[in-house]
């Protein structure tokens, strides 16, 4: 694979289509500028600031755009809120659509057949694969990302975090809790 990829890169570069140094810069940008820390800051702010929470649920692109540190979000971000009665989970059954500006590049499991095939039919079974179980009466809402809309799950704020700063709260927010296949960390639990 490596040789084949290198050959294609040589062809594209020799034809004058791209500068290999620009490819280095793209990879570096993915490796350093995006990641779940962006989503975690948004979630922590929503937990701390009721007006921001409401703005996020009304128009996530606009709300996130007001935060200087995470502004790469584009126009089509939708935040969906977990409640005691309803749990949200995000999938892309057709390919790998994912809010990468908020969460980074998707993990392999998100792009692979087991998750894509089962999330829409047996979400409780999929959650069990993650060691997650929900009360049997909780509604599970699965969002299949079939267009350019991207979904960010706003998990429930863990108990025992009263008075915590946004920075402390952000430490509890996991990537999977923003996809809907996990929960935030529990305060004081070993990580």
């Amino acid at each position, binding site marked *: 694979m490596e040789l084949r990829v290198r050959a294609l890169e040589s062809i*594209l570069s020799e034809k004058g289509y791209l500068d290999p140094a620009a490819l280095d810069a793209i990879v570096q940008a993915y490796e350093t500028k995006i990641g779940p820390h962006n989503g975690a800051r948004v979630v922590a702010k929503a937990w701390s600031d009721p007006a921001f929470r409401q703005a996020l649920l009304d128009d996530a692109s606009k709300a996130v755009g007001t935060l200087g540190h995470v502004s790469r979000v584009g126009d089509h971000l939708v935040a969906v809120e977990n409640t005691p009665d309803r749990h949200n989970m995000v999938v892309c059954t057709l390919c790998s659509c994912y809010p990468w500006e908020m969460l980074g590049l998707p993990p392999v499991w998100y792009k692979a057949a087991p998750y894509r095939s089962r999330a829409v039919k047996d979400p409780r079974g999929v959650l069990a694969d993650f060691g997650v179980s929900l009360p049997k009466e909780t509604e599970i809402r699965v969002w299949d990302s079939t267009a350019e809309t991207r979904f960010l799950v706003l998990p429930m704020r863990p108990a025992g975090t009263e008075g915590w700063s946004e920075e402390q709260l952000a430490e509890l927010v996991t990537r999977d809790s923003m996809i809907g296949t996990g929960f935030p960390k529990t305060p004081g639990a070993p990580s």
Partner: protein
Amino acid sequence: MNGVHDMGGMDGFGKVEPEPNEPMFHEEWESRVLAMVRAMGAAGAFNIDASRFYRESLPPHVYLSSSYYKKWLLGLEDLLLAKGYIAREDVAAGHAVAPAKSLKHGKFSIADVERIMVRGKFGRAAPAAAKFKAGDRVRAKNIHPTTHTRLPRYVRGHIGVIERDHGCHVFPDTVANDAGENPQWLYTVVFDGRELWGPDSDPTIKISIDAFEPYLEPA
């Protein structure tokens, strides 16, 4: 197209296996493939829907047995060959031997990187009034285009409810084939689990898709 990429509801793929502390890339070449796809798309060689169509057009056994970035590489090669940006002779030689074709936005350089790290805009002015509104009952049409579509098989023929209206967006079904952006209204449509999977389905599940207006009819 009714390809193997359209996986919603299929059985037999086994358990989801998350990898602890997964790296962003497992091999260095994966990062080069990602960067080449982004760069060539931004230079104007193809749009995102065309790149999806070429990946889903891989033969089913290749699609299912290839890693994610291998699919990206194979799709990229096929797409660049089909659109004449590279030639078979180039691939055979491992170097550029055939003449280059001009790119719509010119050579992709370092100055273009910042721009592609912000997501593209897909909203467009509405060419006509929306046919549906939140609360309307709709049926996903029973259609089977052999070209690119974003209407998954598992909802076709089923009744759901419009929940959100996202405005007008570029229509993947036409833009993927270079047949124009053809903007269409986009809605979140929610289906009850039992509507999709029958009476034995978990009664607590609801599934939504984002559906372009041409995928829907009143129900």
